[in-house]
């Protein structure tokens, strides 16, 4: 993050400012349990659950804030929230 005079920001600033640093708990995806229902993608408030080439969910940890909604809603118990070591 550049310290711009007047606390200003140009569009696209969040590409530089990775907000994932706010996270305390990190969702870990257990792909063996995943049924590809897509619920985690739907409930993620940050839209940061992507898919890999096998259509399995992959979180974008640069922006995931660890709210835990995906783990709470996952019907297959395929997401675990783990305390993150920094």
């Amino acid at each position, binding site marked *: 993050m550049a*310290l711009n005079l*007047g*606390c*200003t*920001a140009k569009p696209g600033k969040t590409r530089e400012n990775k907000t994932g*640093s706010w996270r305390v708990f990190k969702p870990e995806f257990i792909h063996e349990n995943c049924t590809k229902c897509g619920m985690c993608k739907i409930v993620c408030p940050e839209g940061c659950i992507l898919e890999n080439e096998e259509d399995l969910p992959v979180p974008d940890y640069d922006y995931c804030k660890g709210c835990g909604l995906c783990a709470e809603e996952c019907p297959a118990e395929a997401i675990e929230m783990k305390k993150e070591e920094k």
Partner: protein
Amino acid sequence: MMDIMEGSHAVSRAVTFCRPEVIAAYPITPQTHIVEALAEIVANCELDADYITVESEFSALSACLGASAAGSRVYSATTSQGLALMFEVCFNVAGMRFPVIMSIVNRALGAPLSIWNDHQDSISLRDSGWMQFYSEDNQEATDLHYLAYKVAEDHRILLPSFVCFDGFILSHTYEPVDMLTQEQVDSYLPPFKPYHRLDVKDPISFGMFASPDYYQEFRYANDQALHKAKEVIADYGREFGEMFGRDYSGLVESYRLDDADTAIIALGSICGTVKDAIDEMRDAGKKVGLLKIRAFRPFPGKEIAKALQGVSRVAVLDKNISLGSKGAACLEVKDALYGSQIPVLGYVLGLGGRDIRKKDIAAIVNNAEKGIGDMFYGLREEELK
């Protein structure tokens, strides 16, 4: 050209010469005459500005913030409770580094309700990041507006500024004022060049969120800009003196201080009374001098320490009180002189418009000589029983 003018009207004329493009203000005693006159000046097409009538002081300064973000030179004026209502916006204007200039016609804060002068309103915002200038007379009140715009808009500074002058004592008093002409002001104050501004073709957001990882650095940058302002004020104050004969290069100004035993420190219109009192005391053989603080923010601590070398004691007059502590100027002068062994005695006085006369200044000097200080001066003891 020398004019006999009411202080408020001298200031509104000076502001007109600064060519603000947006004025947003809400009338409040004793500031009303300034914005009333400006409204008339704009309505008469003597100034090409948008005059925004708002429903509160919070909106007035918010409108100025927005107009400054859009790249305009802006102006507002307020006092007392009006300034208190602007508290939040003041910090935002300074943090976003908008060079807003605002006249503060100093008035006491309630309760109890008082429309009369002291410095509690602007002093209470000393931590907001704005520069603060205090005027001794109406001449200074007008000139400091030109200086404030020039310093504030300098791209090395980019900070807002209060130009303070005492309610009624100056604002409603007719005094001779050497009014500059539009051409003279134009030759001193160039058109405003915004550092960056709102532009739909090149979008930008102001006042962005800063996480704990970065917030402190923004505050540091703000503080550094205020410290840097000391030399910029000195440079532009000197330039003003060279062009128009009145030198404002000093953040402080001394009067008969060279061989003084007792130094008085004060801000604002009381300095005129103090100078007369000093003349009388000097005639009676007492070595007393004055150090006037013209810029309270940035605070000229080093300049004060240098000017007070050799005095035996310092009496600081504060028309404000940080309740539960002391007067603001007293605290900062004590800090500036820390380790010097020069006793600093604070006197809180003149609150809510109580007159301070020459005999009061003489009495304070007597107290200081006896080491009696850090007190309210002139309390009505009979009322406190």
